[in-house]
């Protein structure tokens, strides 16, 4: 080792301020920030000046004016053509969320089933899962949406010759006309009964776990819970004199009327989005399971656990740690892919707000900005939730 002249003690090396690395780095960062602020500001200023010069209206005043057009799907929110453009935004967001939540629900179930099926020892089952994954994953999503919408649903019979599904209602090119539940007085109590059932089950579960830890005795939590959650509301239903009835769709001039209507665009999108995303989830699940050491399975078998129990109690909990991070991206993908709804006239956020509302008002900058921020927020919320879930499932070191 060569001996060098090192400054001793706390004495600071004497350098010019200009050559001080700390000072220089601060200066450069400040310059960068000023530059970025200037770029953003000049872009905003330019856009507004140019819009003004071109005689194009700008600002957010349009949000409170009435939209003047109708929408055919709004399961929860009130909407009519006299509603404001802000309401159009909420309805669009609602429709996107409904699509995303239901799509994610089915994609997860199908994905897990297919992922496990691919690893099955049964040759037929594993090959079916293999081909499912390969076909769904390797064709464009937009094409799949068109196949479901134009190839399958559009070939259903016309409204006047609907397929009668009996208790399920009617099916035709205009969608599914299912029976609707109509509530009378006392129906609210059933909801409360359900809630009480859930709370009691939860309490019993934690009590049973404690007791098992202490004494080793097991308690049939599953069956007790099932009895409480289903039995209690059912009992209330009969005590209150059956306050929930079903309203069946009836024949009208233009096909069935009344009941609950599910538009074909929605059915096509749910099918396409969940089946497509499920193929990716299946691969993630398969990878997750394979990532768990083979020794874990052997150890489980050695302890006398059956294959089902091994999967449920040993493999899946460990595999989840590998599965959750990529699963999050699939959920985000599904949410963003739901904007393809615009191709088949489903009124989601992109179609009605960034589409129809933009066209009727011409305020592209404001509307596209709002829409982008909304998708960004949706994705960030999904990420936050999945990160929390991931942290909850990750390995706890004692």
């Amino acid at each position, binding site marked *: 080792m060569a001996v060098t002249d090192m400054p001793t003690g706390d004495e600071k090396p004497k350098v010019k301020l200009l050559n001080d690395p700390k000072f220089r780095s601060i200066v450069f960062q400040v310059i960068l920030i000023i530059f970025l602020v200037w770029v953003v500001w000049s*872009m905003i200023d330019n856009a507004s000046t140019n819009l003004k010069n*071109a005689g194009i209206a700008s600002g957010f005043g349009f949000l409170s004016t009435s939209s003047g*057009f*109708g929408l055919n799907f709004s399961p929860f929110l009130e909407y009519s053509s006299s509603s404001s453009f802000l309401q159009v935004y909420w309805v669009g967001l609602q429709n996107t969320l409904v699509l995303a939540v239901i799509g994610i629900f089915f994609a997860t179930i199908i994905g897990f089933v297919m992922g496990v099926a691919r690893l099955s020892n049964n040759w037929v089952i594993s090959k079916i899962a293999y081909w499912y994954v390969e076909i769904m994953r390797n064709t464009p999503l937009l094409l799949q949406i068109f196949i479901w919408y134009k190839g399958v649903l559009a070939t259903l019979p016309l409204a006047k010759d609907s397929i009668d599904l009996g208790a399920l209602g009617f099916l035709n090119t205009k969608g599914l006309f299912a029976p609707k539940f109509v509530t009378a007085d006392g129906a609210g109590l059933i909801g409360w009964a359900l809630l009480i059932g859930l709370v009691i089950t939860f309490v019993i579960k934690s009590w049973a776990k404690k007791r098992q830890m202490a004494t080793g005795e097991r308690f049939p939590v599953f069956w007790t819970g099932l009895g409480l959650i289903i039995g209690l509301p059912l009992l209330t239903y009969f005590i209150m004199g059956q306050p929930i009835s079903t309203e069946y769709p009836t024949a009208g*001039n*233009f096909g069935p009327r009344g009941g609950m209507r599910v538009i074909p665009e929605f059915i096509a999108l749910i099918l396409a989005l969940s089946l497509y995303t499920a193929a990716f989830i299946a691969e993630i699940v398969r990878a997750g399971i394979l990532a768990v050491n083979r020794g874990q399975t052997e150890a489980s078998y050695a302890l006398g656990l059956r294959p089902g129990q091994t999967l449920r109690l040993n493999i899946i909990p460990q595999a989840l740690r590998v599965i959750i991070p990529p699963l999050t991206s699939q959920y985000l993908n599904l949410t963003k892919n739901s904007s393809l709804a615009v191709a088949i006239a489903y009124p989601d956020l992109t179609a009605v707000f960034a589409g129809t509302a933009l066209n009727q008002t011409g305020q592209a900058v404001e509307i596209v900005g709002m829409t982008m921020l909304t998708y960004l927020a949706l994705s960030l919320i999904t990420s936050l939730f999945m990160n929390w879930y991931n942290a909850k499932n990750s390995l706890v070191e004692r």
Partner: protein
Amino acid sequence: MKKTIVSALGVVALSVSALSASAATLDDVKAKGFVQCGVSQGLPGFSNPDSAGNWTGIDVDLCRGVAAAVFGDATKVKYTPLSAKERFTALQSGEIDVLSRNTTWTATRDTTLGLNFAGVNYYDGQGFMVRKDLGVKSALELSGASVCTNTGTTTELNVADYFTTNKLEYEIVAFEKADEVVAAYDAGRCDVYTTDQSGLYAQRLKLTNPADHVVLPEIISKEPLGPVVRQGDDQWFNLVKWTHFAMVNAEELGITSENAEAMKSSDNPAIKRVLGTEGEFGAALGVGNDWAFNIISQVGNYAESFNRNVGPDTPLAISRGTNDLWSKGGLQYAPPIR
């Protein structure tokens, strides 16, 4: 490193300055040698490619007229097919020079989009088409029906107004492309197809069995269709406006594509002014003095364009009606060229 910063600055500077360009459309058009015309994605009679791939229609004729006025050659046009949703952005951004795409003139579009409507080349009104076997005779019997239409159109707004005013229930299914609307109606997704009545006759030709469908008698709105240009470029605005007026004036004065050459020696001073043998009207528009002669001899007068594209002898079989000359009970009226 320094180079990167400098080039980044350059990009920013460019984006800052490039935004407020393109004021004189006529100069740009002359420089590039053709007119970029925004048309529909295929609406027979208005703007539709024929079997040889050439665009034809009453809206296409207007663009050809503008090219004839500028270059003396009606073929110097390039077409951009646009959906209803894309059309205004394409014009605002300068992607096209003129939008001639069966577009309804409304107050909102005229005042808030930074655009100007340069006249009305077709007076239309919104109508409904249904399947004959539904047995519907009037639009007032349509309560509970599903209605297919184009998104981003006045049609979508009118239908909401009409059904609300008449207290009829309905379901609106709005597609982005006209072809998708027709396909959905044909497949039975909707009971009713609504658009401008001329469009109904045109799109009916695309259905599997056109004879199974009937257009209802009600007209529920005013739809003045016309060419659109960017606001703030009066020279180009004038040129497009007077291209249409020249065609109407020519019909009124009896000048056709066949007799235009012979008419040049007419004694009628009004005809002489149109054909450029008297006065300097072309120069004032920034084009040659034979501008109107070129339009008429290459594209034809308004009657020729109408009859060739949508008139009684075409598959659309639309009568002149409101689109007849003012002197024959219609609404087509052009200010005089003098």
